[in-house]
């Protein structure tokens, strides 16, 4: 997306945590596609479409968790002071 702004400050705050806009868009697309895709390929008798949709949502979540790095830096210190 915005590659000329290539300094370290690339994240914005959404709902009390930091996200990268590009990663957020990717995540929204992946989760929406897996969710609705699973919903539409499900057998038509309820509640199967709903369960498939839910499974698709979780699948999307897992994929995103693997391909996207959290925007948090961990600093571990040995013992307090």
């Amino acid at each position: 997306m915005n590659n000329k702004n290539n300094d370290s400050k690339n994240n914005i705050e959404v709902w009390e945590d930091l996200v990268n806009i590009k990663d957020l868009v990717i995540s929204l697309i992946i989760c929406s596609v897996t969710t609705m895709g699973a919903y539409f390929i499900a057998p038509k008798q309820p509640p199967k479409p709903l369960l498939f949709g839910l499974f698709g949502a979780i699948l999307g979540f897992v994929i995103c968790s693997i391909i996207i790095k959290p925007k948090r830096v961990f600093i571990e210190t040995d013992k307090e002071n």
Partner: protein
Amino acid sequence: MDIVLILQMILAAVIAAVMYTIIGAAPGADETATIAPVTLVLVLSGVKPVIILAFFISAIVASKLIDAVPVSIAGIPAGVMSTPMVEHAMVLKKNGLTDTSIRKIASGAIIGTIVSVPVSLFLARALIPFSAVIKQYGDPVFFIGAILLALMSKNKWISLAAILPFALLIQGLRYLYWGIGVVPKGTNVFTSFFLAITIGPVILILFELLNKEKRDNMKRFDKKEIHLKKVEEIKKFPNPFKILTKKEVGYSALASLIGSVTFILSPVGLTTFLGELFSSRTKDPVEKASLAVATMEALAQATYFSGTLIPLVALGIPLSPMSIGPANPLFNAPPVFTLQHNMHHILTNSDFVWATVIGAAVAAAFTYFITVKYSRQICAFVFKRIPHEALLGLFFSLVLLLAFMDAGWINVAGVLLLGIVAGTLYRLGVNYGVLFMILYSAPWIIKTIAGQ
């Protein structure tokens, strides 16, 4: 109650405890956003009500109890309810008492659960005779509720001013759907509207991102630094009553009792008020902070139980901030549950007791153990492995799915519209409680204005 059903309830409670021990540790994981959609899906897919209740109770206990970890270790609230505790937990952290903080909070949660489960069930039974009186007023109750919550909120005037326009938008969409025939006339689209309000602030930001000027002007951040201190391993299984001092046990129990009685008030407001009140007379900063976190946690658990159980057992209509938020699918999830036919009408008294006790006991035991024993590992796992983008993607896709199921593609646009408006109102200072109450009272408000 047969043994197979009890085993199923225990299984559901275990699943909920494991799930919400992980989800609850993520920053910004609001209870309404994380628990309501999953409960909703369980209701809609036809799981037995008593099993859902055990799942739900376990979920709220686990997700509140695990708050102790991010709050104590990183000073990050994992939800709205833990925000008041951060300041005090930070005092303990500064004094090198991170592990004490975690244990005090977790023990406070246990006290809150032990006190508020029997008190809430007892109060609910005592209130049953009055339920007929309250229900007589039927629909206007929610309108009065919206006004009361607006008056009690920080931003009274904007909240009051929002009631009519927002009700108009909700009913406007419903009449439109009836008019073009995507849903049968008289069927109120509810579930997806409820979720649209929940995720409103996120939808608003997503739309803002589409505006280049807004996008370029947004405050940019580098990665979020989270400082984690290594704490000593806890060897034995700790007894919550030994972790807390006598004074802390007493104050936590008293706060839980008060929290159970005042189920209709805002949990966050109450937690802040009573927590500060009880700890204000203690001088020593460390003693004060640990008293405050234990009391606040106990109280938070108590308001969760009373806010869910009292309206559910006694009334069958959601008349507390808790029941109108996270617990809402137990009251209203059409077509399975409606205000005329929900858990209140289906479950017997012994069902309520069994489901509550099993759910609370399983989650308290499991999450308490995990929290005091593996707090560092959980925190590290969630913060390192779960990106916030994936959580937002998950919520967004669930809303999309339920919007489509409610009324087809047109409702996806409808939900976005509702989300933009709800998100704007939220940013202007109207809280979720008021917005949810408007959602419930909208049909009555519009009919009354039209003079029907």
